[in-house]
């Protein structure tokens, strides 16, 4: 019974990827990656280039917006917070933020960025909404990475009388850099795959290649949703799904390897 549960888990992953490879492999061609959608209704022919570009831009904006404040908050939580009440509050807040459903983040992004600040349905509004969504992920992974640095280093630093800041930027951050980077990659993957926040703040069925901050964009996950839900083209939908999964596999496996290397590096 326990063995079967373990095998079910393996089967699910290989099943999903195998199924997508089988059905989508044939439509994932070079042309699919390098051309814009064509045909009528749009999407029945051509490729997904604008969607790839849109997703990359959205992720880039999200990471630019969230990484630095996320890291600084993590540093506060692991190094400077001591045992103050405020640190407990920040910790609980970040946990709660991590639990906010992505559609509610989208709802906030729509009300605040799109309507209140008047960005309209745009790349910037979507990227910032994704930034809010991945912020807690970055804080939590970076905090754990900083806390995982061997206590010996801190003790040695304290014994030598160097300041906490010096310890932090010369010893602790370099030590935990691979794990922090791994967390950021995970967050990027999370942002790349998220559909709910961008479908209300940024994504449209078809957009050009201009890539202006205030213009709507196409994005891979939303493109997949549209191809499927509007019954445009199942063949292209399989291709898009496969592409999305491969992109996320790449990000997640890189993140896992980075973290694994870090674990071996410490002692």
């Amino acid at each position, binding site marked *: 019974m*326990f*063995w079967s*549960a*373990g095998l*079910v*888990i*393996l089967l*699910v992953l290989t099943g*999903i990827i195998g*199924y*997508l490879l089988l059905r989508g492999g044939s439509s994932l061609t070079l042309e699919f990656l390098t051309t814009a959608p064509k045909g009528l209704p749009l999407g029945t022919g051509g490729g997904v280039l604008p969607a790839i570009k849109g997703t990359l831009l959205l992720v880039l904006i999200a990471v630019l917006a969230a990484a630095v*404040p996320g890291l*600084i*908050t993590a*540093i*506060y939580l692991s*190094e*400077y*917070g001591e045992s103050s009440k405020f640190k407990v509050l*920040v910790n609980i807040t*970040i*946990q*709660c*933020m*991590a*639990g906010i*459903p*992505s*559609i*509610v983040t*989208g*709802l*906030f992004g729509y*009300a*605040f960025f799109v*309507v209140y600040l008047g960005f309209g349905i745009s790349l910037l509004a979507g990227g910032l909404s994704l930034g*809010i969504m991945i*912020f807690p992920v970055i804080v939590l992974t970076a905090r754990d990475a900083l806390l995982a640095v061997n206590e010996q280093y801190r003790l040695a630093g304290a014994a030598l009388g160097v*300041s*906490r*800041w*010096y310890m932090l930027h010369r010893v602790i951050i370099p030590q935990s850099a691979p794990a922090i980077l791994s967390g950021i990659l995970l967050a990027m*993957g999370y942002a790349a*795959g998220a*559909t*709910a926040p961008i479908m*209300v703040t940024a994504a449209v069925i078809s957009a050009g290649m201009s890539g202006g901050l205030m213009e709507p964009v196409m994005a891979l*996950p939303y493109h*997949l*949703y549209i191809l*499927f*839900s509007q019954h445009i083209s199942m063949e292209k*939908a399989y291709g898009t*799904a496969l592409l*999305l*999964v491969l992109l*996320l*596999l790449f*990000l997640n496996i890189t993140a*896992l390897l980075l973290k694994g290397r870090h674990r071996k590096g410490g002692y």
Partner: protein
Amino acid sequence: MADTMARFTSLMVSVCATILLLAIVVFIARESWPVWSSYGLKLIAGTDWSPLARPPQLGLGTMVLSTLWVALGAMFIAAPLGFSGAVFLAEFAPAWLAGVIRPVLNILTGIPSVVYGFVGATVLVKWFEVSFHMASGESLFCASLVLTVMVLPYIVTTSEVAIRSVPAEYRQAALALGVSRPYVALRVLLPLAKRGLLGALILGFGRAAGETMAVLMLAGNTLHLPASWFSKGEPLSALIALELGTSESGSTHYQALFAAGLILLIILFIINLTLTIIRKDSGRVVRKS
């Protein structure tokens, strides 16, 4: 000097982060305030949703029920599977197999929900349509099944930690008494780890209740009160995703969607706070000797 600067900056940024969360809650509450004050509890208890009628009918009861039904259903399937998986990883799996399954679990959490929804819709829904001769295969049950797959990695990983944290003395004492290892797992380890397991379930429930794309693509999206697990429904998250784009900003419809968001947010906050409390106490239950 640099140290004081760093301390001050980190404190300031953390203050901003905390304010950001408050801002999200306040903003969503403020946008939905007019409908709360004019409809009150009818918003949750009512089951008629026709926001464009005059006067608008704004009952979110159907969606709240769908959300709970889908998420609880997913937990119902995921709990036995997830706990067995965790016991397997913690107690029975040979090291090489556990070394394969753990990264696989990690990767499974990274697959986007829209892909789960898509695969679920093309495989499960088709299967229901073909084998039960249904006109359309979407149902709350379908959504629950796919959510099960999505939350399973979280449940397995969290429960495995809970089972591993049971001190080795219990295992040794039980094995010394000559009982079998499955018996030890079921009757000794699982009861001792029950608080951690409950935490895993709550975490999974939170994930399932907040999920949007998979339920949007699988639950069928009808506005009738779901009569059973196998009927169609439209959870809160799907409602927001579908209707936000078409609602005029500032209208009653728009405000009611924010009310839906607020309900979802409150459900999730309650779940997260419970989780924090459970985690804080979990050290005390099993006394390490």
